[in-house]
């Protein structure tokens, strides 16, 4: 139930947040965006979610897409 107290409010519903825990290096996204006091507001996913827009699962916080193919 705990969420970073000052971080992103969407950690529970975000498709990518749990995937950023898959490997050590990926946690840098959580550190630089999700758990960061202010930087989570720069996340492209956060911005779409805040304006109630659908958030593509492959969208990265920096606005790029995960190349899945």
């Amino acid at each position: 139930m705990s969420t970073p107290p000052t971080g992103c409010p969407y950690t529970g519903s975000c498709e990518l947040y749990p995937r950023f825990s898959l490997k050590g290096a990926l946690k840098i996204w959580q550190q630089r965006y999700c758990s960061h006091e202010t930087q989570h507001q720069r996340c492209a996913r956060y911005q779409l979610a805040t304006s109630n827009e659908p958030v593509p699962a492959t969208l990265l916080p920096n606005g790029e897409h995960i190349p899945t193919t």
Partner: protein
Amino acid sequence: MFSGHWPWWFGGPVFAIVVVAFWLIERRLFGVVGQYVQVLEPAQGAAELDKASPQALEEALRRATLAEFGAEAVAEMEAAEASEKERAPEPRRREPVPRAASLLFLAMLPVGGAIGALVTGQLALRGTLGAVHERVVASGPMELVVLAVGGVLVGVGTRMAGGCTSGHGLSGCSRLQPSSLIATASFFGTGIVVSFLLHALVKP
């Protein structure tokens, strides 16, 4: 205890409890349209992510991570992670909320409505919104058609507005989101104007 409509002093706090409980349990902002979206329109690309093997996904994420933060920052992160792992066990991962939770929420909406009607002694199956609606809008089968078209328009409108009365009115306004304040003012304002017009129309 209640007859006719439920009093505002009861409904208001109950709404507040629902919104706060929703956040505490699901870590999501409350909004009925959002629940429909979650069920009917899974996130674009979710299937691709699920289809990709964990290794391929990890590799793709790793490449994107290197491109964004650079090799040095990633190596630092890995080293910090390794030393942290030695000191403490890995914390439990937070899983995304399953779609079934939204489905259950939506299924319970009519159940809640039925309980509310039962408590106020108004539980009955009706095919009309009442005498005034029949007189001003339509009656008989035409009234059902009008209601169905109205329902579709509400759905389209709330998707265009990015939320409904619960999403904008409860979750958005309580967070002082400008878009929600404007949306709520628009639909409540329109509702008030239309209700005055209808009132004038049905006056004897």
